[in-house]
Each structure stands twice: as C-alpha cells, then as structure tokens.
C-alpha cells in the first residue's frame, strides 16, 4: 500500500498522523512486522547533533547614515572576520573563521577559544556583538568606517546556510603514530590509544533514507531548533560509495546543504565549538522527517547501530597525507557505542564527538511538532543525486 505526502499531511492536520522516532521504529517494526508497520506509521523522525564545520550565517545589516559599502571592504564581529565579497551591507561569517590576533597553533595545540561558530551562537542567543568595519568609500557610499554594537534583532535577514551538513556515515579516527595528535575528531592518543566517532548512527537522517528516496531539495527539516530546508545536496556529496546489503554506505557518502532563518533558532541546538589544536566550529542540531510512503521506505528506517559499519582511519598517517589506503579496520556503531573496539588485537577506548542525547532530543522535538500540527511535510522539488549518478569525488590537482 502506497501513501502520499499529501495524504500524510491531511492526517497531520487532523491530528491523526502516527509519528515515531528512528529509534522507536526499530522495536515497533520488529513487533508488528514491516507490512503492518508501514500501514500504521506515517512519519519517522531522525536527528543528529554534532560539529558541522561548513556552517555559516549571512545577514543584512541595514544601511547606516551616511551610507557605507562593505563589499570589497573589511568587517569583524567580536573580532572575527566576516566575508565582505557581496554588496553594501550583506556579510557572511563562517564557523571556522578566527580573529586575526588568535594565536592559532603557534603554541601547539592552540585553544581556539572564540571564532565564527561562537559568533553564530552569540547571535542566536541574542547577545550584543561588536561590529567593526572599514570601506574604501564611493560617491554614493561615502563612509569609510563604522564601529557599533548590535544584536540579532537589529539585523534584517539573518540566515543560517550550511553547505555541507549531516554526513551520511563518517570515518572513525585513530592514531598509529607515537605522539598525541589533535584533529577535528578530537585528541588522538599515540599507538591506537583511543578512537573517536561522530555519526548519530541509527538516528542519523541520511542513514535512515540511504538512497534519498524521500529527502530531496526543498525538504522541510528541523534546523538548529527552528524550521529549515534542504537547499541542495551538500558539498562533497558522494552517493556512489560502496554500500552494504541494506544500502548503508560503508564510509562518508551523501551530505546536505541546509538553510533556515536564524531568528527562529535556538542556542540549545547551535553551539560554538573549540577543537584543541584544530580550530573553531559550530555544533548543529538537524532533524529530517521521513514520510513512510511504503514498506521499502519503512524498512530503511529500521536500520540499527549493528547494521552501520564505519571505517577506522589512521589520522596520524594516511588521512593527513590523503593517501588511498585500506582502513585500519571496520567497526559497527553498536561496537563503537559499547565504549571499546579492537584494533590489531588491542582493546581501544572509543568516544563520540556528536551527542546522541541531543540527536534524540531533536528527533523527539520534531515528532512533537508534527503531532501538534505545527510542522507539515514538504514534497521535494527535485531529488538529490543518487547512487546511480556516477559522481566521483575529485582530489585537488596541483599544476604549476
């Protein structure tokens, strides 16, 4: 029996839709069987909360009197540089941006206490930020500098735009060398002293719709505590990686570019990150609803941590060199979440970099929005490039 998104939306409006999280669906399908569950359940909500480095905010300042043209000029918010390559008063700030006077890794490992991710968190929290900007001055925009304090309420549009989020599966990081290293997946002790992972596993959006049969461009989502949309496939979207018999990619695969109004969002789901020795970033909460249109789509959402396997990569050697090499080993998320995996016969402690607690909170919140009729599903305008697209990731060719 097939359902349509329109039919599911009618049920949402009538308060009759059956909505469960991607964690709950596992037990329900096991008990009732796929056929019965596909009829009964209308929406499965997913969630993830973790560091998503390709996050940014663009905003419109409004025009000062006299006018200033920041395009081609320079601007900082709380000392963190914003991108000034647009028109007069449209700025953009990325999660990894750092103040010019940040010592970075000059004393290794650098602490990276405040950067773009923290600016975004402070903006959404309603804090006052200091804008400092310089321009070259034109006849129609004569002013050459501005210093002012502002909050999110003083700005016109403030839009979270993340060009690569919600990775479908991801590397597990470890370190074979004889010294501690500092990575975006955390500190890695020498001689396979620990391993870090980052996916929400069975709750993760794209692992519940591995062939992007329902998630597409225009899909309405939970983004940072507000409502956002899938804008496009994310950068480095790589749907053609090998998959297991359940369609689960065995390594990093699909990604989403997402967009939404920062003014609706909350600090609870957008948090500045300081990764020792690496840099700043932003932790983002994302939840995608999956309409249960048929038994096949339902079956994908019953994926468990035991079904999801990830490659353990040596971040001390092969990763930084960008050398094609087989993984150190492959492990499942069930193993990773047990707190210990085995690498070359050695017991290695694992720690997550993304919060399963928050991921669950995202999925639960989205579920309650749908139950309360506050959130209806959207029909995608176009599909994401799929496993048949033939996309191959290119490495950077260096020519001289």
């Amino acid at each position, binding site marked *: 029996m097939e359902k349509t998104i329109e039919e599911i939306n009618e049920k949402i409006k009538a308060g009759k839709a059956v909505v469960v999280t991607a964690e709950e669906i596992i037990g329900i399908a096991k008990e009732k069987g796929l056929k019965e569950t596909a009829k009964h359940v209308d929406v499965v909500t997913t969630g993830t*909360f*973790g*560091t998503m480095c390709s996050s940014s905010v663009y905003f419109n300042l409004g025009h000062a009197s006299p006018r200033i043209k920041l395009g081609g000029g320079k601007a900082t918010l709380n000392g963190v540089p914003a991108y000034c390559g647009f028109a007069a008063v449209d700025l953009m700030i990325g999660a990894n941006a750092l103040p010019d006077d940040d010592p970075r890794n000059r004393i290794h*490992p650098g602490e990276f*206490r405040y950067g773009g991710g923290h600016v975004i968190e402070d903006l959404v929290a309603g804090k006052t930020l200091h804008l400092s900007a310089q321009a070259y001055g034109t006849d129609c925009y004569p002013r050459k500098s501005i210093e002012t304090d502002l909050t999110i309420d003083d700005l016109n549009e403030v839009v979270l735009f993340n060009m690569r989020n919600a990775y479908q599966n991801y590397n597990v990081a470890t370190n074979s060398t004889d010294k501690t290293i500092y990575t975006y997946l*955390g*500190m890695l*002790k020498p001689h396979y002293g*620990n*391993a*870090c992972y980052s996916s929400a596993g069975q709750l993760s959006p794209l692992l519940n719709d591995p062939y992007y049969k329902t998630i597409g461009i225009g899909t309405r989502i939970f983004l940072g505590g507000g409502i956002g949309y899938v804008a496009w496939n994310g950068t480095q979207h790589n749907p053609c990686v090998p998959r297991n018999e359940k369609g689960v990619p065995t390594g990093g695969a699909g990604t989403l570019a997402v967009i939404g109004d920062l003014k609706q969002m909350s600090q609870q789901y957008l*948090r*500045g*990150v*300081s*990764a*020792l020795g690496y840099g700043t*970033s932003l*932790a983002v909460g994302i939840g995608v609803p999956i309409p249960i249109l048929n038994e096949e789509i339902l079956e994908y959402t019953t994926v468990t941590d035991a079904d999801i396997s990830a490659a353990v990569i040596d971040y001390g050697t092969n990763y930084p060199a960008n050398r094609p090499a087989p993984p150190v080993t492959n492990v499942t998320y069930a193993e990773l*979440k*047990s*707190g210990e995996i085995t690498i070359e016969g050695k017991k290695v*402690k*694992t*720690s*997550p*970099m*993304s*919060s*399963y*607690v*928050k991921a*669950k909170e995202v999925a639960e919140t989205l579920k309650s929005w749908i139950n309360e009729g506050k959130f209806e599903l959207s029909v995608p305008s176009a599909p994401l490039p799929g496993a048949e697209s033939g996309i191959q990731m290119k490495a950077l060719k260096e020519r001289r």
Partner: protein
Amino acid sequence: MNSHRIVLHFSNDVTNQPIIYTLCQKYNLICSIIKASIEPNQEGYVALEISGEDKNYDQALEYLKEMKIRVEDFKRRIIRNEEKCTDCGACVGFCPTGALAIDIDTRKISFNDSKCVACSLCTRACPFKAMQTNF
C-alpha cells in the same frame, strides 16, 4: 573511618613546614596526595584524600587553621557546567579514572567527582568548555 578530599592552600611562609607529616603522625590520618604544586618560599597547594577518625580529622582542621592554611573542598575546584555540556561524550575516552562515564542506555554523561583526580584531560577534550578545573 571517613574519607575527605580537600585542597590545602599554603602561603609562602609555610611551604617549608612538615604539614603532611604532622597530619599523618600527630593526627593519625592517611594522606594520599592527588595533585600538588609546592615550591620553596612560594604560594602553593596540595590536593589530598584524607582518611581517618572524624575526631582526628576535626583536630587536624584546627591545626591547619592555626598554621594559616586555607582548606577548600576539592569538589569546588572541578566544575562541570551542565548548561554548556551537550552530552556528546568527547571527554569520556580520556578520563583515566572513570569519573566521566556514559550511561549505556540513556547515553547521558555522568560525572562522579569523588573519582576525579583533576588531571584536566577532559578540559582539553571538551569542545564546549563544559569542564573546568581550577588548579
């Protein structure tokens, strides 16, 4: 016999006194040093786990007061900011004593300060600066 975890703050004129020896010998206390920074003629601290009879411990506190040594609860020096913590668990793989642990069912992070030795590895591992040790 009870156990107490305290931090003794020494002024520069008592760092050359046999304070720990006195606690052990005179007050019959078992002193285990968790962390310390003592240099001659400089201010310093010793974080201790002390076990012994309550009466002896109380008398020892009087002695420390007489010696003008400030005594602070060890717990006050280690702070877990629950608002900043996102329960990610990045700290757990580094905690050498199991003071920070993940509940296998709820995936929430618990912090048992009685197991903490203030090694500060968690403060380095935490991306949200939720753990703070003031030593």
